[in-house]
């Protein structure tokens, strides 16, 4: 790691995002240090996915700044941001269903021109996900939800991202897959990858993360070390409308 530690890898200030007449994210500040796993949790509709779409450039910010290692990227288009090493695994997987698993992985390395490196990475991904290796020439659309999620993560790994944005990786998955997904995230963490994890499965997310932000109605209401956040009663309240 050569990045200056004084400077967070990702630094977001006053981010405002919205659709049509509505602002869904109303001035979010957050930062992600290199090599850390940071989670962004919150109820549905709080603006988590919108935030990630803003970070990856799918949605143009209305205000605020997004700095990657000090450079403002908030005006860049999605493909330029991908080039800088921010890779998003979108909500709902969004694998290319009509392409084979191999082709999906090759798409992940779209920006890489070194073919040898590409196949080296592919072998690596397939070793990590043996389920995918068995079916590399099948259409991704035929995979189960959990397998598609693995493919989506594998596809992101093909780009060897500086910052991985994971959007609800456990969404809609059967419990055994949820476990497996979190096992993979734990492995990523062990490899010192930088991850911003958006999750609804707050407990699992908080256990794996170093740092956590709680998002409510488009605003950060709580932040700090994940362990502290996990112990905060208001988190349970945010989810189940307690009190």
């Amino acid at each position, binding site marked *: 790691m050569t990045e200056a530690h004084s400077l967070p890898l990702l630094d977001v200030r006053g981010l405002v995002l919205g659709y049509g007449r509505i602002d869904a994210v109303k001035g979010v500040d957050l930062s992600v240090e290199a090599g850390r796993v940071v989670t962004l949790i919150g109820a549905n509709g709080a603006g988590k996915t919108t935030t990630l779409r803003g970070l*990856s*450039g*799918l949605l143009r910010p209305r205000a605020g700044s997004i700095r990657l290692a000090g450079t403002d990227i908030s005006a860049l*288009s*999605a*493909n330029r941001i*991908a*080039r800088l090493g921010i*890779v*998003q695994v*979108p909500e709902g997987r*969004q*694998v*290319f*269903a*009509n*392409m084979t698993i191999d*082709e999906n992985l*090759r*798409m*992940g390395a*779209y*920006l890489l021109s070194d073919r040898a490196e590409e196949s080296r990475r592919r072998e690596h991904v397939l070793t990590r996900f043996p389920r995918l290796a068995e079916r590399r020439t099948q*259409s991704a659309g035929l995979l189960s939800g959990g397998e598609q999620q693995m493919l989506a993560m594998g*596809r992101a790994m093909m*780009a060897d991202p500086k910052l991985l944005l994971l959007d609800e990786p456990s969404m809609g998955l059967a419990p055994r897959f949820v476990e497996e997904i979190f096992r993979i995230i734990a492995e990523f963490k062990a490899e010192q990858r930088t991850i911003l994890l958006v999750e609804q499965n707050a407990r699992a997310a908080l256990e794996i993360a170093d740092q956590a932000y709680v998002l409510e109605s488009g605003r950060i209401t709580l932040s700090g070390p994940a362990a502290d956040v996990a112990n905060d009663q208001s988190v349970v309240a945010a989810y189940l409308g307690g009190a």
Partner: protein
Amino acid sequence: MLAQQLVNGIISGATYALFALGFTLMFGVLNVINLTYGVYFSTGALIALYATRNFAFPILLALPLAAVATGLIAVVIDGLLLTPLRRKKAPELASLMVTLGATLLLYSLMTAFIGTDIQRFPPAAIDSSAIEIGGVRVSRSQILIVGTAFAMVALLLALMRGTRLGLAIRALAENPDAARLMGVDVTLVTFFVSFVSGTLGAAAGILIGLNYNAIQPYMGEVMMLKGFAVIIIGGLGDIRGALIAGLILGLLEGLTAGYVASSLKDAVGFLLLVLTLWFRPVGLFGRAAVKRA
């Protein structure tokens, strides 16, 4: 006689397929029925004609030149008409209407300046000599057309399957947002697809113009009617479907004219079209195959 009729059918079928390729590609990837496509057919032929006739370009140079120029025109048209609609996320009928208007505009502009007189390539441009095998005659330009049609299908499929650009095109066709996340410059790839379609349309126009040696602005409009039939029968967006549907149409037309009645020749395509709409609207071969390739 049957052998010659079958060969005739394959040749005209190949011209339909060659024409429909770019049309169906545009639909498969960009999800628009771009009616200006017929204009590219005419434009390509006219540019090649002027290059060979007025500037004495050899046809082998004029062909790629005209095709590339037309491809660029296609990019400009896409940028002017369709990109704004895409940005606004306008309904699909809006793009159909805007290209409909543009088609009328472009054809009538062309005829206003060029007229509808048939023009021909200089005789030296092509070798029209024929080859005769067992009583079946085929000219060199016809062999070129059939060869090009098959080669283009093979090339397009190879592009779609084997290259990174092809992958990006298919990714764009399937899910533009996910493609952007992989680093695909969607605008650029969109323009590239427009370019390739325009080029294909122009190449078809030039080759077909060479074969029948009759070039005029409205030649694309006539072809468009066959084009609709081919891409719907073959399945919107299906590259192989376009080739097969084109050949089927050409053969059926030829056999109808040869053995039933030539007055019914044109009706065959539309009958097939209507039957497809009634019974198998996704086309003969299922769903859009650009996305699957």
